[in-house]
């Protein structure tokens, strides 16, 4: 059974703290993604990675960084948490598209983790 796990379901931090959100997948997927989900705004991509040590900015990367040292693990880092980063954070993973499609076309079916609800006070 495919699985994407996230380190915490709920997290409360103070403004200015450094925050680490961890995501692990056990499906040997090449691609991993971090989204934030806010009411009415849907899922917005923060960063994605298509290989170890590789990362690409998504639509809203400001205030975030990521790390992918191992294939199965993708970390989201809030260098200095702010109240406007209070949100639900979802991690996802997928296989890279096969065939002639290259690494810049990663969008196969994505498997999502349960999410981390982060509150920054």
């Amino acid at each position, binding site marked *: 059974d495919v699985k994407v796990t996230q380190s915490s379901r709920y997290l409360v931090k103070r403004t200015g703290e450094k925050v680490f959100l961890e995501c692990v997948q056990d499906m040997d997927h090449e691609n991993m993604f971090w989204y934030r989900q806010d009411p009415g705004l849907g899922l917005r991509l923060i960063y994605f990675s298509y290989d170890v040590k590789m990362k690409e900015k998504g639509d809203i990367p400001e205030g975030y960084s990521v790390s992918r040292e191992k294939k199965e693990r993708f970390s989201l880092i809030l260098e200095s948490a702010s109240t406007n980063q209070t949100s639900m954070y979802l991690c996802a993973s997928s296989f890279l598209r096969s065939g002639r499609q290259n690494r*810049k076309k990663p*969008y196969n079916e994505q498997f999502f983790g349960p999410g981390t609800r982060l509150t920054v006070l």
Partner: protein
Amino acid sequence: QQPVQSPQAVILREGEDAVINCSSSKALYSVHWYRQKHGEAPVFLMILLKGGEQKGHEKISASFNEKKQQSSLYLTASQLSYSGTYFCGTERVGAAGNKLTFGGGTRVLVKP
């Protein structure tokens, strides 16, 4: 740029039909549909890759009109289990690589 989903919310009685639309202002490579039940992670429904293509998942089907840059999701003879928020994701080809952007979601509530 996020695709626009309509309606934002819909309430159905069990057995009724509904249509969710997803429109983009840009040319699309593909459209993805996901469903998220309350308190759960989004779950993949289908990807539509070709213009005019239709696909199905249970009694949920979708179409993709490449020329109109839009996709529609059809909930036929809805069941209680169809309740949730449906997201479309539109994939566009870019010079720096393809990009998938999700819409704001459509909340569906199916009542007995």
